[in-house]
């Protein structure tokens, strides 16, 4: 059995390796193209790494394109969405986890229902709703839409984290002299940090890379987010791949930093439901 299990482990590792390579290869290609000088891009054929590296695309993107504006807009939209959604989802997730109230079942059903529609169907109605409110072509409008779309899933995510925290901890706090809200803030919330980190990360990336609504609700460069901005590198007659990829690499940076920052909580967080608290 031992040789079989060694073999099994090897196979398992190999499968994971294949998957990781598959998942990371586009990122590698992104990086490769972004450092390939324009004159080598089409002349060298398919190579894993260009014979000569250059950062000209990065320089151009940062100094001469509207990319810094896109970047700032995206930071604002994704950051605000992540914070607002996490805040609201913590409260609603807590309510779903701890309270029994009339209509709870229907509320959950309704939230699930919102997750079932392809977003494309909703573009036109949403545009119709936002436009008289002056929320098209504005970052606020995007934050509102992203918040609305992310709250149901984030709520379920947070609910599962709250479910993992024994009620008795809160009860002990209440007996110790805490109000329900104090017990929530001082006992439950600190224990839910992993969940909060996971939710923040999830919503931030979702908002950071959202294209459809950003494209439909925003026109012009001043309020464009970075995924929309990437499309500006596509002109009628050519695609400036080098600059596009350089912008892409730069766009990865905040997401990477963000995950690096929350990673410590996240690893705990994603397994927190599995073990008893």
């Amino acid at each position, binding site marked *: 059995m031992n040789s079989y299990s060694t073999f099994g482990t090897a196979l398992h590792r190999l499968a994971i390796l294949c998957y990781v390579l598959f998942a990371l290869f586009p990122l590698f290609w992104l990086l490769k193209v972004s450092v390939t000088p324009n004159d080598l891009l089409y002349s060298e054929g398919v190579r894993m790494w260009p014979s000569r590296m250059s950062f000209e695309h990065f320089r151009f993107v940062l100094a001469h394109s509207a990319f810094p504006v896109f970047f700032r807009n995206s930071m604002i939209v994704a950051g605000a969405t992540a914070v607002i959604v996490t805040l609201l989802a913590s409260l609603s997730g807590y309510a779903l986890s701890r309270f029994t109230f009339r209509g709870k079942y229907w509320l959950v059903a309704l939230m699930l229902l919102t997750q079932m529609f392809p977003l494309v169907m909703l573009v036109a109605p949403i545009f119709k709703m936002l436009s008289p409110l002056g929320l098209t072509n504005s970052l606020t409008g995007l934050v509102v839409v992203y918040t609305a779309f992310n709250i149901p899933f984030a709520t379920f995510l947070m609910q599962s984290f709250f479910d993992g925290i024994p009620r008795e901890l809160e009860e*002990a*706090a209440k007996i110790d002299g805490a109000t329900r809200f104090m017990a929530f803030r001082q006992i439950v919330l600190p224990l839910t940090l992993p969940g909060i980190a996971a939710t923040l990360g999830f919503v931030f990336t979702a908002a950071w890379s959202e294209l459809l609504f950003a494209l439909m609700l925003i026109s012009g460069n001043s309020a464009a987010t970075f995924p929309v901005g990437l499309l500006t590198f596509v002109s009628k007659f050519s695609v400036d791949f080098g600059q596009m990829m350089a912008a892409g690499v730069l766009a990865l940076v905040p997401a990477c930093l963000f995950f690096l920052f929350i990673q410590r909580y996240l690893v705990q967080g994603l397994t927190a439901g599995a073990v008893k*608290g």
Partner: protein
Amino acid sequence: MASIDIRNVRKNFGVVSVLHGVDLSIENGEFVVLVGPSGCGKSTLLRMIAGLEEVTEGEIRIDGMRVNERAPKDRDIAMVFQSYALYPHMNVAENMSYGLRIRKAAREKITAAVSNAARKLELQPLLARRPKALSGGQRQRVAMGRAIVRQPKAFLFDEPLSNLDARLREQMRAEIKKLHRDLGATSIYVTHDQIEAMTLADRIVAMHEGVVQQVGSPLELYDRPANLFVAGFIGSPAMNFLSARYEVGAGTAGARLPDGTLIGLSSGYQLEEGAAVTLGIRPEHVEMSPASESRLRATVDLIEPTGFGIILHLGLHGLPFNVFTLDRAALTAGPTVTVAFPPQHLHLFDETGMRAFETSPQKGKG
């Protein structure tokens, strides 16, 4: 310290009725133990006193004040949970001082209270540790410490020792008893454990299916169980029961077993001649190889030495019957033995399962 009054308290969860009118008065400084089978509503009653469950009907008073509508934080009681419920993100000292900190007690007072409790429970070396880094017994002590630093009006314990191994449980039981002796605090203690109930309680409250069956001192419940439930629940190994018919002869009363044997009783009972009764006798009160007249022959099914004594599993007219004896000769007993029932140790229950009253009352109340 406080008295606690529970008046006709009922509890429904939706349509399910869990407590059907509980009345109980607990005096200042008393140690009351709630016992009963799983699901009989002990925890529910305790949680209602703590304010964690709403009272459906009836009234709970602490120190004479109605507390039904009061939040747990305003009842000034402490509770020790079965799972300990220590705050995982706080160290031992922070866990113990949490209650005082949110009540904004002075810092010196908090430090004094924590170190005082830590000394009592021998927790000083552990004050900086997180609960994760403690053994079960240490966690249990921290939970106790958290309860005592606040000097609350009353302590509630919900099976606080049931997650510990047998030896530690014994040790903590003694500590709890000492603690109660030192602090003299009103305590309500829920347990499954017979020995805990017998050793700790000033009074035991035996519950069954949401109804209080008997309230009394441990020995009262042991010596004079009020009904079949209490008789069978208190004591280990459990009391033996035999069905019989009540008979009165010339000056003597007896219980006639189905096989015709007449078991002599120590007095007459307030029962009709020929009434169906249940005869109860504790395994430790059965006499073996006796010279008595009303003896019975039983087959030996199993012999269980416990070290201290021996439990004999017998078959009496095909029904299981246990005997507990200190006599090591019983180890080689069999295949049949004779047993007899000393009249002063017999319990008689009427058809409804209630204890039958003697016609000439014995010492103590009935």
